[in-house]
């Protein structure tokens, strides 16, 4: 097992290398320069001043050279400084990470909490009324543009009823609140962003759950269990669900990179300073160090997620355990 893991981990390195080469190339091919936002089309900024600024940021060097320098820093885990505000990229990411992680974890838990029972229940009688109605429900969630739903919810719960806040993460005087109230305040601000993110994710998990459960329920061991006279609950949850959950493990592994990738649209509408907006703003401003750092971290997590899914699968399912176990 250890040898297998090491082999898999080593195989990630060349993949990662090519991902960064391609990303660097793509972002460099995009028209525009990091100095544009501040200096292009401002008659008070002379051509010479702009050229000098490009030199200061090393943008006048050949692309291959810029990449080599970047790579040299990254292997020492230094992502450089943002062109936008000259702050270390690592700090900018760390600052945004907790919010995005919180929202994504909460919505993932909410999705599992709702979608797994929905899928199981639907699988008991595929094609039945419950199955059909939940299908309609979860696909409505999947198909509804989240920005539209978010704005409708804001207009209704925020403006009409005034039950929920419109934007932001904290009340204005959050700092002066006692701890408990700070928690409640944050939770109150997170209700809509989390719910809306979860609504869109129900379809995937509940459909996987349903099909996997349907398949499991046709297995011989389920018939055996029923023939033994076990109560239906026990058949479903002990013998059925445990086996049917295997594909969900894969989904969870694959959703690892999603946990740190925020949704630009939701974060923009709810005014949440998360990873999605960081990435979007960096791309728009051609802030190469931030873009490259996020792409690299995203790639690493995606690959680790795949690996994790495989390993977890092996642990959960003895049939696909690799090699001769000692």
């Amino acid at each position, binding site marked *: 097992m250890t040898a297998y893991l090491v082999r898999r981990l080593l195989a990630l390195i060349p993949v990662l290398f090519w991902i960064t080469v391609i990303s660097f190339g793509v972002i460099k091919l*995009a*028209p*525009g*320069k990091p100095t*544009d*936002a*501040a*200096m*292009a*089309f*401002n*008659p*008070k*900024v*002379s*051509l*010479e*001043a*702009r050229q*000098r*600024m490009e030199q*200061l*940021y090393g943008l006048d060097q050949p692309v291959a050279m810029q990449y080599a320098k970047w790579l040299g820093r990254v292997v020492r885990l230094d992502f450089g*400084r943002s062109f*936008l*505000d*000259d702050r270390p990229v690592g700090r*900018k990411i760390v*600052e*945004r990470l907790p919010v995005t992680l919180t929202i994504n974890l909460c919505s993932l838990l909410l999705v599992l909490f709702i979608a797994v029972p929905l899928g199981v229940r639907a699988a008991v009688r595929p094609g039945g009324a419950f199955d059909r109605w939940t299908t309609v429900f979860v696909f409505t969630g999947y198909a509804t543009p989240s920005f539209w739903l978010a*704005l409708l919810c*804001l*207009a209704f719960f*925020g*403006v009409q009823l*005034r*039950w929920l*806040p*419109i*934007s*932001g*993460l*904290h*009340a*204005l*005087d959050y*700092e*002066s609140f006692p701890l408990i*109230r700070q928690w*409640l*305040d944050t*939770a109150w601000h997170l209700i809509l962003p989390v719910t809306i993110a979860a609504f869109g994710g129900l379809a995937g998990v509940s459909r996987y759950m349903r099909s996997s459960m349907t398949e499991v329920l046709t297995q011989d061991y389920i018939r055996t269990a029923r023939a033994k006279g076990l109560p239906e609950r026990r058949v479903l949850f002990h013998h059925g669900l445990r086996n049917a959950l295997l594909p969900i493990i894969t989904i969870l592994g694959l959703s690892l990179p999603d946990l740190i990738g925020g949704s630009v649209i939701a974060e*923009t*509408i*709810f*005014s949440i*300073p998360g990873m999605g*907006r*960081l990435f979007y703003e960096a791309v728009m401003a*051609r802030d190469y160090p931030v873009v490259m750092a996020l792409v690299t971290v995203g790639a690493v997590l995606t690959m680790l997620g795949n690996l994790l899914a495989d390993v977890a699968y092996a642990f959960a399912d003895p049939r696909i355990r690799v090699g001769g176990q000692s």
Partner: protein
Amino acid sequence: MPQRRQRQPLSLVPLLALSLLVGPSGLSAQSSPNTGDAIVVSSIGDASRLLPILVSDASSGEIAGLLFNGLLKYNERLEIVGDLAESWTVSEDGLTMTFRLRPNIRWHDGAALTAEDVRFTYQKLIDPSVRTPFSSNYELIESVEVVDPLTIRVRYKEPFAPALESWMMGIIPKHLLEGQDLNTTPLLRRPIGHGPYRFVRWKTGELIELAANPDYFEHRPFIDRYLYRIIPDTATQFLELMTGGIDLSSLTPLQYRRQTDTPFVRRAYQKFRYPSFGFTYLGYNLQDARFRDVRVRQAINRAIDKQAIVEGVLYGLGEVATGPYPKASWAYDPAVQPEPYDLERAAALLAEAGWADRDGDGWLDKDGRPFRFTILTNQGNDVRRQVAELVQQQLKRLGIDVKIKVIEWSTFVHEFIDKRRFEAVLLGWSLARDPDLYDIFHSSKTKEGEYNFVGYASPEVDALLVQGRRTFDQQARARIYHDVHRRLYQDQPYTFLFVGDALPIVASRFRNVHTSPAGIGYNFIDWYAPPQEQRYKRLAP
């Protein structure tokens, strides 16, 4: 407990009582300003660096403007007056400026602000290792000399009138920044200034908080706290307005005219309207043989009904432009009258230039080729796209076939403007208060990346622009720029379309908010909220 924003039911009795007090006879009830409360301002973007010489975006500029002052400033009538400088003189030949600082100005940390700080600011502005976008404004300076702790003398290599505006740059603290790398100093995120507000905290992407500076040299600002909330989505900003969550924001013409006409908004907010410092124009590539003929440009000017554009796109919230200056500016020449919308005259001018519909297909032609051109404009600006569509319809009546192409900003600038790959562009300039237009219309500014991209070259205008830069007397300058204005309108290198209105909206609890040629912010430190209407409690200092 999460607090729900209270909807305040307005009962009639206190309202009546109030109106009796403040009513027509109640002039004495005009209470004197008082301190307290907070103002919540919304912005679509976060700030990035809060040292004035490194500011490169509007948000940073707004915040830094409250923390730092310059030697000079514009007053509400857009005249240059002293700010940190108590007085200043410009020598007869325009080569020497002497500034006398107000005594007793203190940095927020208590240190005294002196002429050394001014010289330090200048040194950093021209230091090639400092990433400031403003260095070009200080290139003509020969020396900056500290005469005594409160006097500073600046010598120029040649007289340069717009230089006065460059001394509105915020002064930075030498005692805190000396020996530091300005590009990465922690003061970029935790600035220490000397302005009406001092820095409190900055939660990236969320909020910047400032507090009134009790020692500010004019007087302590009345509003205790300034909260700058970053709300990137304009629809969300609008929803926040609808619940009273923000106190100061700006509206789109549609929001101003239609969507803010609710009882709640009428009660909770005051809306303002004044011409902005910018204009929208149709610019021609003057290397194109068709547009090189001034008659063609004049014909297009007459065939575009600008009033219809202002009505249709801006809901009337703007004014037809005849040149690059807003009416409130002393550089604006009121004698320049807009040519009336006149299709016949336009057609006659085009006929003179050789354009007529010879093959009867409805489009004008010359030498067998129809009059067809493309207007380029940038993505993300709906107003410009709509204006381009109206221009397209209007020129169709004249027999000119216009196509529209909307292009992403970076591509637009680098691939089309810089490389002169356009026939006509629909764009806008927002300009500084000084009327100098050298960078935009002087014939020397046509290199790739410079801003006379239409390729305008008029020896008369060139001479005037140079003269305007060398003249300090405002009346003499006004004559020069009136002449520039008139010639630009005759020559039509741009067809000036309109000046849009700035449309700020301010919570009605704030008093002393007035419009002026300079906008509403010029007397921000005088704004106040009466105690009974204050919304945010005072925090422990």
